[in-house]
C-alpha cells in the first residue's frame, strides 16, 4: 500500500518549498495529502550553503507574512543598501562604475541571508503545515519500474568498514510514493540517476566551486553593514572564471566567499588556498581587519545554465532546484529558482494526484515554470557563463552582450578542462590551513564505515599525478585526498559533500555516493 502521496528527496530550499506549497495547494483544493521529505543532513539546513544575496519576493508567495515573523532567520537578515563591484589587480582594487554593470547584476533591494538559517525556518514551517520531514535519511537509488518513478531506496545503515553488517545494522528500506519530487541539490545522487535515465540537456552540465567563510568582529566591522561587494580578477588567472563576494550580515559579521569555475586548467590549483590568497589581497584584508573566521564551508554550483537543463518531468517524478541546474550565473543566484521550481513542482503534483489513486501527467511542470518567469530568465542568461571560456579580458565584455548571441555556445565537462602539465604554482599565503578550514565546517563521519568515496582504478592515479599534479589532492576543499608517493590515500571523514570530485577528477576516477544518513558538515549560519 502506498500511503505517501508526495515524496520529496532533499530538504533544502527547493524541497521544503515544494513541501509547503503542496500542503497549501491541497488545502486550497479541500484535500488531505501526505507529504514526506527526506534528507541526508543531520539537521535542517546543515548541508545548505549559499552566498547569499537573496531575491526574497518568492518567499512572499510561499509563506505569506514571513517578514513579520521573529526567528533566527529573519533576525539575521540584512537589506542591501550599497552594492559595489571591484576589479582586483595584484595590489589594487578598481571600482567598476555602476553604469557598466548590467542592471540585472545589481543587488540593491536584495536581502543578505544565511541560506542555512532560511532552511531551518522553512523546515519549521513545513512541519507546522503537517509535512513529515526526516533528516539523517540518505536516498541511494531511484526506483523506476516500467518507466515510472515509484520512489527511492535508502542507504543501509550500520556497515563495518569491510561492508559487513554490524550489530546495529538496518537493511535497505524502500520509500514508495505516488509522486517523487527530486530536490537533492547540486550533483545530487538521485537527480544524477534521474538525468541518466530520463535525459540530460542539450549542453553538458558544468560546475563552479564556492568557498565561503563567516568572519566575526568584536566591534563594528571595517566593511560596514548593509553592503555587498563583488570582485573580479585577482587571484584568478584570466583563464579562470570566478570572483569573490563580501556580504554584510549585520554590524559585526561579514560573509565572504570565492567562486571558481571548476574548468580551471591547472592541476595544482587549491581552491582553499586561492580563497586565502584572495582574502590576503590588501583591499580585501583591509575590509576584514580584526575579524576572525568562525565558520567555513564549500559547495559546488551548477553553472551549465539553460542548455544544461535536463528533462524536467517524467512519469511519477519532477526535478527541481540545483539538482536540475536552475542557477542564473549572470546573477550567481539559485535560491529563488529553488523556491520557484519547488513550488511549481508541488502545484503540478497536487493537480496530478487523482482521487482514485491514479497519477496524471506531470508535464505541466514546465509550463508552470514558464509562467513563473523562471525559464525566460534562464534563457536570457544562457550564454553568460559560456563566453568566459574565451578568458576574462574578452569574456567580460562579451558577457555583457551574451544574451544577444544567437543559439548556444559550447562547454565541456570540468575534469577534462585540466591541461597536462599546467600549473598555477601559487605561493602559500600563510593563512588558514586546510585542516582548520575543514574543522570549521563541523564535518563528521563515522570513522569505521565503508568509505563513501572510492577510486575504481588506482593505476589511473599514477598518470594523473604525473600529468595533473594529482589534481584531487589540490581541488578538494575537504583535504580528503593525499598522495603518499605511490597512491591516493583517502580521509573520507573530512568530506564536505561539496561534490567537486564528481566532476573535477581529470581522469574521471572518483566515485562519490552519499554516506549513511546524518553525516557531513554542520553548517549553521552559512
Amino acid at each position, binding site marked *: 500500500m502506498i500511503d505517501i502521496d508526495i515524496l520529496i528527496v532533499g530538504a533544502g530550499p527547493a524541497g521544503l518549498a515544494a513541501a509547503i506549497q503542496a500542503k497549501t495547494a491541497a488545502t486550497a483544493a479541500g484535500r488531505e495529502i501526505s507529504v514526506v521529505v527526506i534528507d541526508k543532513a543531520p539537521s535542517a539546513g546543515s548541508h545548505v550553503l549559499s552566498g547569499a544575496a537573496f531575491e526574497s519576493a518568492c518567499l512572499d508567495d510561499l509563506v505569506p507574512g514571513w517578514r513579520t515573523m521573529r526567528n533566527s532567520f529573519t533576525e539575521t537578515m540584512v537589506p542591501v543598501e550599497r552594492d559595489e563591484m571591484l576589479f582586483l589587480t595584484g595590489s589594487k582594487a578598481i571600482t567598476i562604475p555602476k553604469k557598466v554593470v548590467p542592471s540585472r547584476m545589481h543587488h540593491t533591494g536584495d536581502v543578505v541571508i544565511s541560506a542555512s538559517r532560511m532552511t531551518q525556518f522553512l523546515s519549521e514551517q513545513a512541519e507546522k503545515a503537517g509535512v513529515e520531514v526526516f533528516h539523517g535519511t540518505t536516498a541511494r537509488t531511484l526506483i523506476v519500474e516500467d518507466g515510472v518513478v515509484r520512489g527511492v531506496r535508502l542507504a543501509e545503515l550500520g556497515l563495518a568498514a569491510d561492508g559487513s553488517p554490524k550489530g546495529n545494522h538496518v537493511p535497505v*528500506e524502500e520509500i514508495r510514493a505516488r509522486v517523487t519530487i527530486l530536490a537533492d541539490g547540486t550533483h545530487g545522487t538521485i537527480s544524477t540517476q534521474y538525468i541518466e535515465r530520463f535525459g540530460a540537456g542539450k549542453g553538458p552540465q558544468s560546475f563552479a566551486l564556492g568557498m565561503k567563510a563567516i568572519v566575526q568582529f568584536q566591534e563594528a566591522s571595517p566593511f560596514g553593514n548593509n553592503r555587498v561587494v563583488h570582485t573580479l580578477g585577482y587571484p584568478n588567472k584570466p583563464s579562470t572564471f570566478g570572483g569573490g563576494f563580501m556580504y554584510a550580515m549585520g554590524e559585526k559579521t561579514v560573509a565572504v566567499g570565492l567562486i571558481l569555475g571548476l574548468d580551471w586548467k591547472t592541476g595544482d590549483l587549491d581552491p582553499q588556498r586561492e580563497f586565502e590568497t584572495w582574502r590576503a589581497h590588501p583591499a580585501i584584508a583591509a575590509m576584514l581587519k580584526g575579524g576572525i573566521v568562525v*565558520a567555513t564551508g564549500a559547495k559546488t554550483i551548477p553553472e551549465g545554465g539553460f542548455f544544461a537543463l535536463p528533462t524536467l518531468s517524467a512519469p511519477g517524478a519532477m526535478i527541481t532546484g540545483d539538482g536540475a541546474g536552475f542557477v542564473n550565473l549572470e546573477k550567481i543566484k539559485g535560491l529563488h529558482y529553488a523556491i520557484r521550481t519547488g513550488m511549481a513542482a508541488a502545484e503540478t503534483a497536487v493537480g496530478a494526484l487523482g482521487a482514485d489513486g491514479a497519477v496524471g501527467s506531470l508535464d505541466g511542470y514546465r509550463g508552470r515554470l514558464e509562467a513563473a518567469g523562471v525559464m525566460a530568465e534562464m534563457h536570457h542568461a544562457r550564454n553568460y557563463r559560456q563566453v568566459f571560456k574565451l578568458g576574462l579580458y574578452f569574456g567580460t565584455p562579451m558577457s555583457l552582450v551574451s544574451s544577444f548571441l544567437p543559439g548556444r555556445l559550447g562547454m565541456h565537462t570540468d575534469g577534462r578542462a585540466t591541461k597536462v602539465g599546467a600549473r598555477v604554482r601559487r605561493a602559500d599565503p600563510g593563512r588558514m*590551513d586546510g585542516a582548520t578550514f575543514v574543522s570549521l565546517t563541523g564535518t563528521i563521519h563515522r*570513522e569505521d564505515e565503508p568509505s563513501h568515496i572510492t577510486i575504481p582504478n588506482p593505476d589511473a592515479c599514477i598518470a594523473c599525478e604525473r600529468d595533473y599534479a594529482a589534481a584531487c589532492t589540490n581541488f578538494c576543499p575537504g583535504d580528503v585526498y593525499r598522495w603518499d608517493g605511490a597512491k591516493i590515500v583517502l580521509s573520507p571523514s573530512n568530506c564536505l559533500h561539496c561534490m567537486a570530485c564528481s566532476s573535477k577528477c581529470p581522469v574521471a576516477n572518483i566515485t562519490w555516493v552519499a554516506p549513511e544518513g546524518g553525516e557531513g558538515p554542520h553548517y549553521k549560519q552559512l
Partner: protein
Amino acid sequence: MHVIVLVKQVPDVSNIPEDAWDREKGTLRRGLLDSVLNPLDLHALSFAKMLTAGDPDAKTIYLTMGPPQARDVLVDCLSRAPGEAVLLTDRAMGGADTPATAYSLAQGIRRIERELLGGSRDYLIVTGMQSVDGDTAQVPPQIAEDLGIDQIAYVQGVELTPKLKFRRIGATGIEDVIPATFPTLVTITACMDTLYSGFHASRAARKSNIHIWSAADVEAAPDRIGIKGSRTTVYRIFSPSEDRAKTCEMVTDPAQLVAKIKAKYRLATGGPAVHEEGAYALEGRTAMYHGPFWVLAESEGDDVKTVSLEILGKTRELAQFLGEKVGVVLPAASVSDELAASLIAHGADTVYAIEDPRLAEFNALRWKAAISALVLEHKPQVMLFGATPLGRELAPRIAYASDSGLTADCTKLEIGDFKANVAILKQTRPALGGNIMATIMTKDSPTQMATVRPGVFKIPPPDPTRKGEVVRIKPNLPDVPVSTVIPIESFTSKVSIRDAKILVSGGHGIRNRADFDRLLNPLAGGLTALLGDDAKVSASRHAVEDGFTTHDYQVGQTGQTVAPRLYMAIGISGAVQHISGMQMSDTVVAINKDPRARIFNYADFGIVGDLETVVPALTRAAQEAAR
C-alpha cells in the same frame, strides 16, 4: 526483565554556532542550539535493547522530564527501538536542579511500576553515565537514593546468563558486578554501537501514543519539584577565557629546552589553571551558613588520596575566612593514628574516623548511611568531596539524604558576598561541555555540598605541630543486600592518556608509522627518566588516520580531552579541533618545521626545525639531564 530507560533532551553542545554566543553577557542563546537526545543516553538505548532481546514479555519504557517539546527525544528513542514512552511535563517542574529532578523522575518510576509494569519489581533502570549539558552525574544516584535501591555506575558490558552480570569501571579497576536485588539502577558508559532510526520505524514512532503525566499525575509533592524543590541556584554564567593565549618562548638548543621544561614542570600543578583567590574577611558581615567545614577523605591503604589533601588544604583556607573549624570524615575498616595525624597536619581540626570492618570496601548504601548520620548530627555548613568515581556516586546520595544542595565538579571555590553583608560559598564549575562557566550557590539547605575536580588545588605543606582531635565512631550500619563484585583488571596495568601527566603527541609532520615509533617512544622514555612521571605517547587526528596509532590515543575534539602537566606537540600544526583537546595542558612544548604553525600560539616553548634532527637531540638531552 523489564527496562526503564531514562533519557534527557539537551542542547547540542558539540556544534555551537558562533552567533549563539552573547560575548558581552558571556551567555549562550539556547534558542540557537539544536535540541537533541543526550548522546550518552544512546548507549543506554543499545544496552536496553540487549537486555530485552529474546524476551517477548520484556517491556522497554522510555522516561523523560522536560517541556512539551521533550516529546521529540521520546520519539527518537521509539524510532531506534520499540517500547512505550512517558513524558513528565509540568510548568511547576521547570527550573529543577538535580534533587528536584531526581524526585520527580522517581515518582514517575513509581507510577510506571504500578501501572505499566503491573506492580512487577523485576526491572532495571538504565541511563547514560551523565548528560552532556550538565555533566554532573548526580541525578541517577539521587533517584537510586529516593527509591532506596542500589546503583551500578559506569557499566560497559553485560552477561545475561547464567546470572545477570555487569562489567563496569570501578574505582580501582574493571570489575564484574552481580546485583543482589531488583530493581537496580545502571548507568552506561560509551561502550556499544548506537542504534539507528530507520525510516519506517521513525515514521511509526512519530504517530505512536506517548503517556503525558503532570506533577499531580505522579503524586509529586509541590514543594519538592521545580525551583521550589531545588537546593542550588545559578549565581552567574560566564565564558571561560577564550583562547589561552600564551607567549611562546623560542629555543634553539635542545639542552636548554630540557632545562626549561624541567624547571617549569616542578612548578606545574597540572589540570586547569589554579585560581589564586584573594583573602576574604567578614568585617562585620554575617555568614549565610554556620558551622564547621567538612571534607570527605578517601584513603588508599594507609595513605590519604592526593585529591583529599588538595581539598583539605583549600577547605582550611576557606574556613579561616569565616573563623570556622575543619572536620575530616574518613570511613574505613580502621584508621591508624598516623593517618589521623597526617590529616591534622594537613589542616583538620577534627578527624571523624568511622570504623567498621564492613566499610573496608566502598558500598554506596552503607557509606551513605554512616556519613549522613554524622552530617545530620553535626550540620556542617560546607561538605566537600573529590570528584572521583567514589565521590561522584556517594556525594549525591549524602546530599539527597540530608536535603542539601550539591554542585558537581567544581574548579573554583571562594567565599564571597551573596548580597550586601552576607557571605556564602561560591562554587564555580564548567557546564555545557566546558563551553560556559557557572557560579552556583546553595539555597534552602543545611549544608553547602560540592565535589571538586582532582588536580585543581595545590596541597599546602603539612604542619606537624598542628593540634586536633580524633573522634572514633562505631557506625550503625543498615543491613543492606550487597552486590557481588569480582575484580577483573586493575587500573595500574592500564593508564589511559587522560590520566597521563606527560604526553608526547605526534602529528602529520611525522612521515610514517616507523618514524612515529622511532622518534616518540625514546623521547617519552627520556622525559619519564627526567621528570619521574610516566610519559605516554598520543597522536593528532591525522596521525591516527594515517594508522600510526589507534583512536584510543587520539587527542582532540573527536578524540580525548587531556590536561597533562606537560604536553609535547611534535609535528602538529594545531588545528582547532586538536587545540580544543589539549589547551588545558599546563606546559606545552611545540616542535614544528613551520614557524607559522598555529600550535606555537598555544605553546610555552617552541623549537622550529626538522623533527628528524630536533627530536633525537632532545631525547639525548633529556637522557643526559636525567643521569
